C-alpha cells in the first residue's frame, strides 16, 4: 500500500475513530449506563456528569501519560544513577551540576533568556497584531512577519550567519561597520552581549507565533465593547490599553507562558551559532552536550529545567482557579 493511500486511510480511521469514540462513549453513558429514567432521573444525570469529563479527557490523558509522563518518570529515576547506569547515586548528579561552573553559566544565561525573549516577543507580537488589525495590507504584513516561524532552525542559523559573520563581505553588521570605517568585530564573541545577539534570533522567530495567537484574540473581542468606548470619546491608545489589553490578558499570559517554555527547550540556535562557546551556553544546549553520553547528568539537567518552569506553572494554576470562580 502506498504511503499516500495509507495516509488517507489513517486520516479516515483516526478521525472516525476519534469522533466515534466520543460519540459512542457519550451515548453509552447517557442512554445505557445512566439512563435518565423517570424515577432516578436527577441522580443519574449527576452520576453521568461525574463520569463524563473523564470520557472527554481519556484519549488525551492516555497519549500524554504514555508518551510524556512515562518517559519523564523513567528519566527522573535514571537521573539518580551514575553515568553507566550501574550504581544508584542519589542526588549526586544534581550536586555535580551545581559544582560545575559551565552549568552555572548556562543557568545564568538562561535566566537572561527567560527574562528577555518572552517579553520582547510578546510585545512585538502584540504590537504587530494591533497595528495590522485594520490595515488594508495587514494580512500581507502578517504573513511576512510570520515567515521566520516557518523556517527550520538550520535555515534560521544560516540566515543569521549572513548577519553576524565577521567577514564584511558576508556579514551585514560588519559590512555596515566597514562603510563607516570601523574595523570588523565578531558580535558572537562580545562578552555578555553575545547572549542578546542570539536572543534576537529567537525573538525574530517567536514574534510570528505571538502575533498569530494575539491577533486571533484581538479579533475575538466583541465589537460592541469597543464601539461603546468610541462613542464615549476614548482615544485609540486608551481603547487599546484600557479595553483591549484587559480583555485578552489571558491570551497574553498563554503566549508568554508558551514562549517561556520554548526558551527552555530550544537548543538549536545556540548549538548552531556558537556551539555554546564564548559563554553563551544555555541549559538546553548544556543538556545536549551530555545527552546519550552521560544520561544521568543529562536527565538531571532536564529536571532542573522542569523545576525552572514551576513559577510559570503556579502562575497558571492560580489563574485557572480565578477563572473558575
Amino acid at each position: 500500500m502506498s504511503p499516500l493511500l495509507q495516509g488517507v486511510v489513517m486520516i479516515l480511521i483516526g478521525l472516525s475513530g476519534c469522533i466515534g469514540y466520543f460519540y459512542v462513549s457519550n451515548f453509552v453513558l447517557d442512554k445505557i449506563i445512566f439512563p435518565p429514567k423517570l424515577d432516578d432521573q436527577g441522580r443519574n444525570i449527576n452520576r453521568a456528569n461525574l463520569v463524563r469529563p473523564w470520557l472527554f479527557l481519556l484519549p488525551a490523558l492516555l497519549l500524554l501519560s504514555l508518551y510524556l509522563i512515562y518517559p519523564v518518570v523513567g528519566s527522573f529515576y535514571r537521573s539518580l544513577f551514575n553515568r553507566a547506569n550501574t550504581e544508584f547515586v542519589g542526588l549526586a548528579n544534581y550536586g555535580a551540576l551545581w559544582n560545575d561552573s559551565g552549568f552555572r553559566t548556562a543557568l545564568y544565561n538562561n535566566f537572561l533568556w527567560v527574562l528577555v525573549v518572552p517579553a520582547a516577543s510578546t510585545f512585538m507580537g502584540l504590537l504587530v497584531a494591533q497595528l495590522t488589525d485594520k490595515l488594508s495590507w495587514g494580512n500581507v504584513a502578517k504573513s511576512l512577519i510570520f515567515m521566520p516561524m516557518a523556517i527550520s532552525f538550520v535555515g534560521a542559523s544560516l540566515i543569521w550567519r549572513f548577519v553576524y559573520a565577521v567577514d564584511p563581505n558576508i556579514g551585514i553588521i560588519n559590512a555596515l561597520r566597514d562603510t563607516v570605517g570601523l574595523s570588523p568585530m565578531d558580535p558572537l564573541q562580545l562578552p555578555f552581549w553575545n547572549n542578546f545577539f542570539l536572543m534576537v534570533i529567537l525573538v525574530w522567530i517567536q514574534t510570528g507565533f505571538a502575533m498569530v495567537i494575539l491577533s486571533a484574540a484581538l479579533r475575538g473581542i466583541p465589537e460592541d465593547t469597543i464601539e461603546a468606548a468610541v462613542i464615549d470619546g476614548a482615544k485609540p491608545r486608551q481603547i487599546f490599553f484600557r479595553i483591549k489589553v484587559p480583555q485578552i490578558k489571558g491570551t497574553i499570559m498563554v503566549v508568554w507562558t508558551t514562549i517561556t517554555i520554548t526558551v527552555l527547550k530550544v537548543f538549536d540556535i545556540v548549538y548552531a551559532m556558537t556551539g555554546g562557546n564564548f559563554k553563551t551556553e544555555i541549559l538546553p544546549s548544556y543538556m545536549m552536550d551530555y545527552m546519550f553520553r552521560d544520561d544521568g547528568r543529562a536527565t538531571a539537567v532536564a529536571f532542573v529545567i522542569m523545576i525552572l518552569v514551576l513559577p510559570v506553572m503556579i502562575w497558571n494554576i492560580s489563574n485557572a482557579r480565578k477563572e473558575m470562580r
Partner: protein
Amino acid sequence: MDNIAGSKSSLSLVTHVTVTALVILWLIPTVGLLVSSFRDREQIAVSGWWNAAFSIEEATRYQPAAEGVTERDGLFVLTGSVFEDDPSTVSAFGIAGRAPDAAQPGQTYGRLKLDVVQEDGSIKTKNFETAWPVDATPVAPETFEDRPVQGFTIDRALSITRDGDFTWMSAKDITRAPSIYFISPKPPSFGLDNYQTILTSDNMDRAFINTFTVTIPATIIPILVAAFAAYALAWMEFPGRTWLVALIVGLLVVPLQLAFVPLLKLHNQIGIGQSFVGIWLAHSAFGLPLAVYLLRNYMTGLPRDIIESAKVDGATDFLVFTKIVLPLSFPALASFAIFQFLWTWNDLLVAKVFLPKTSEAWVMTVKIADDLLGSRGGDWGILASAAFISIAVPLIVFFSLQRFLVRGLLAGSVK
C-alpha cells in the same frame, strides 16, 4: 468631526510607516537567504548577498596553452586573448597572484633582471618588477638597494589591452603555460541550480508525499483529541481540574529527547516498530500539551451565557461541545493547526527516530539533511534553497487558514 477624521488619517499614516519599518526589519535576514538560494557556494563565500546584484571586480588566473610561440627581439612571445568565449574588459593585470592589479591596460608589466654592482665591484643579478608603456622600453632604476645598476635584461613581461588581448614575453622558451592574472568585472550570476538539484534529486517526489503523509494526520489527530480535553478542562466541573491544567503546563517543557529511547522500545514491543503509525502517534502526543493549553485558554474565554443557556435548554455536554463550542473555537483551532503543521513539517529529529531508515520512508527534511547536504554539510546554497522550498507549503497553509482567524465567525454565531 473633521478633527476626528484628521487624527485618524495621521494615525493611520504612522501605522503604515511603523508596520512597513517592522516588516522590512523582519525581512532583511530572510531576503539574504532568498538571494543566497540563487547563488552557488563559492559566490556566497566571497561576496555579501546585498552585493549579489552588482558585478564585482574579480581577479582571475588565466593559463594559456603554450602553443604558437614566436620569437621577437630575442624574446619568446605568446599572444592570445584572456577572454576565450565571452568578451569582457580588463581593468588591471599582473604577473603574480599576490599582485593581480600591478599594472593598467595599455602598460607592459614585467620582471627585469638588473645587473647590480656590488661593493667589491662584482655584479649580481637582482629581480625588479616594474610597469612601462606598451610602445616604450622599460626604464631601470639607477640604484637598487643603494647600489648602482649597470644594465638590465627583461626576464618576463606581460601586456594586456582593455579587450583582453595579451602578449606574454619571456627570455626563456615558453614550454609551460604561463600564469596571467587580471581583474575584470564579473557579472552577477543567479541560477536555479540549487533548486534544480533539490527538486530533481531521486525520490524527492516520494519524500514530498511522505512529508504530507506524516504531517496531515499528525496535525488533525491532536487537534481533535485536544479539543475534547480542553473543553472538559474549561467547562466541566470535576475534582483535580486545576491540577490537570498545571500538569499540562508542566508537560509542555519536557525535552523530547528524553522520550525517544523508551518510546521506540515500546513501539518495537507492541509491533508498531519504526513506521508511519508510530510517528503519527509520537507527533500527536508531543503536540498535545500545547494544543490542550491553547484551546483550553481560548474556550474559557467564550461567553458563559451561551453555554449555560444551552445547558439549561437540556443540551448535553456532547451537544454543547459539538454544536456551539467547536464552531466558536475555529480561530484557535486554526492557529494551533498552523503551528502543529509547521513543527511536523520542519521536524527532523522525530522523523529520524520513528521512521524506518530506508530511502522509501524519507521525509523532506531527512532527505535534504542526509542525502543532499552530504556528510559534512557545508553547501550553503543548497541549504538556503532547501529552506525556501520547505517554507512554501507552510506559507500556503498559513494563508489559507488565516481567513479562519477572523472576527466575523464569532460575531455571527453569537447573534
